[in-house]
């Protein structure tokens, strides 16, 4: 490979744990977050895992894995977790509790990437909280880099990166040269557990904190959330005793 070293950047987001059912808050301005369990966004977890697997699979090629999160102070937890899994250093961009729009996130990341001189960015195809699914693509636009989205397989061959993507009814393989952006799909890999010795080692790894203003980026929202509502409740089903009764009910409901 003509590339001598990989400097990987993995952006990660702290979201409400995906096994937890979110509830709309009383004022209908968002979801309830107090007392709710937060974890790393599952797609981001996959991105971290992939970066580590690339390091393990390409002896000596990966020079550095840097995890970055834009979010509240608590997002440190997921950075520590990524460090324990095998990332080298981390940065928290303190944006507070407010949701930051994908464009702003991409601009923040662009600054870090330029500073780092990264040549590969691996990030989730979407965050499961706002489901925007835009950050990777916007970032590719800002940097003017090639992007391979929804990756289910990543391979390094000669001087190219081959990415298999899941598409309707099959798969598609694309390739590009570095620098590039890859967004991860669910089937790319299964993230590992964090082991105790690594948790202890991770404590000594760097966690840098910066503010959006330090990077000269304005993160003001362009969109305003008007209202958040739960989906309409499904009506409870009924049991019918006979086929005749079933037909009768279907007729009554206008389905027949």
């Amino acid at each position, binding site marked *: 490979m003509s590339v001598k070293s990989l400097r990987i950047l993995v952006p990660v987001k702290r979201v409400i744990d*995906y096994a937890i059912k979110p509830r709309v808050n009383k004022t209908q301005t968002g979801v309830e977050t107090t007392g709710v369990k937060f974890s790393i966004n599952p797609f981001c977890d996959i991105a971290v895992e992939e970066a580590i697997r690339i390091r393990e699979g390409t002896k000596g090629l990966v020079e550095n894995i840097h995890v970055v999160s834009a979010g509240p102070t608590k997002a440190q937890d997921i950075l520590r977790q990524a460090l324990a899994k095998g990332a080298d250093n981390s940065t928290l961009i303190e944006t507070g509790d407010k949701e930051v729009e994908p464009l702003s996130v991409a601009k923040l990341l662009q600054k870090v990437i330029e500073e780092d001189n990264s040549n590969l960015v691996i990030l989730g195809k979407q965050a499961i909280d706002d489901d925007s699914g835009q950050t990777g693509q916007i970032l590719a636009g800002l940097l003017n880099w090639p992007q391979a989205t929804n990756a289910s397989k990543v391979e390094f061959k000669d001087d190219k990166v081959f990415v298999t993507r899941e598409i309707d009814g099959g798969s598609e393989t694309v390739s590009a040269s570095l620098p590039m952006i890859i967004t991860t799909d669910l089937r790319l890999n299964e993230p590992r557990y964090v082991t105790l010795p690594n948790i202890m080692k991770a404590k000594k790894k760097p966690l840098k904190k910066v503010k959006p203003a330090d990077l000269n980026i304005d993160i003001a929202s362009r969109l305003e959330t008007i209202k958040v509502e739960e989906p309409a409740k499904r009506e409870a089903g009924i049991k019918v005793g006979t086929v005749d009764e079933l037909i009768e009910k279907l007729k009554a409901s206008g389905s027949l």
Partner: protein
Amino acid sequence: MVSPISVLGARVQYSSVANVQLTSETYPEIQRGDYAKLTDEDIAHFKAIVSESGVVTDADDLVFYNEDWMRKYRGMSSIVLKPKTTEQVSQIVQYCNEKKLAVVPQGGNTGLVGGSVPVFDEIVLSLANMNSVRSFDPVSGILVADAGVILEVADQYLAERGHIFPLDLGAKGSCHIGGNVATNAGGLRLLRYGSLHGTVLGLEVVLPNGKILNALSSLRKDNTGYDLKQLFIGSEGTLGVITGISILCPQRPKATNVAFLGVESYEAVQKAFVHAKAELSEILSAFEFMDNKSLKLVQDHSDLARPLEDEYPFYVLIETSGSNKDHDDAKLESFLENAMESEVVLDGVVSQDETQLKNLWMWREFIAEASGKGGGVYKYDVSVPLKDLYSLVEDVTARLNEHNLIGDSDEFPVIDSVGYGHLGDGNLHLNVAVRRYEKKVEKVLEPFVYEWISKRSGSISAEHGLGFAKKNYIGYSKDQDSIDLMKAIKSQFDPNHIMNPYKYF
């Protein structure tokens, strides 16, 4: 391979034994009691009480109610009754008592001692259709519910209200809270919340004569007379049918962590327990252990990703739960660090999200099921003083080897004998996983296991009860005076002995 998650949710075929032998054929020495036989007139009477839809007589539908979860016992009942109200239960039982028809109360049919299925043609009285929550008081945390509410459903209901059911066990997706009380189930949260003898505040019971005993108190303190409800907790359907439960439910912990650790020896397991109690104290909510053989069984029968890359002789699962995540995280972290540094723990992982937490628990909860997947399983659920706990597994394994019964190939009936359990409660599960049930295996195991336990003043059934499987062995844990008194109580409540006969003692 199966995904264990879906397996636990619904009832599954527990063992791969194709056909379960009739209990009456396996144990020809047991004679049918002098009970009446079901007549068409009886059936018509029952239909009048619970309506057509509350009576099951179809042969295919009856299979589920006649066979136990381990697929070791099979009765031949020709009728299942599914009442919807306490009043209906009362009418059924009163009628059965008059006619001398024997009855088996049945919950989710997940019991592990053959207590929930008929031995001969007893009528199965299923509580499955009594499944409503009656009330919940968010201030006191007291839940009053029908006996047939499924444990997991009750816990979900409470979760939505910030509370937790004080009991949790691997069969939660199927077992009933009434069945839990009837067996005095222990489970995974006993270490933290204590036994049902403490948390159950009141019961509604239909007595064998059909009378409804309303002891559904919602009081935490009530010293007026004998505490009758205690008799029914763990009575396994021999004294009456539990129809309603009042139980004190704690606040649901806001933060839960699970660590899965590899350790070198059973001594190290005990050391880790001492450390955990000292350092985690009030947030420690479970301390479970398993040997490497248990873990291998789970691995063979599931597609879970191994938590630790290397193999260790023993594993420990520690759960903490509390109200403040940062506080709990810090405590757990310092405990784990110390345990690693002092080499009590050799390696370990900590759950980072809910999914990992559930998966780590699966490694422990799925052992019961995985043990039976190769054909069948002999289960022993014992409590003995902690220091001796695991030597039972070693001694039994040695004995099976001496008799040349354990091996990798089909000629050996025994696949392996594994040990795991609720270390925090001094409770070991010895599972002898077999390819097929064979008398010669049973003879090597019994009464050896019971004598072994008796010598150490342990209990031959720590939490699964006596049922049919252990009824002959009660003498290893209770003296004759106690057994006589129990029998007198039984006769007082149930002079015709119609409730769950052939079981208990």
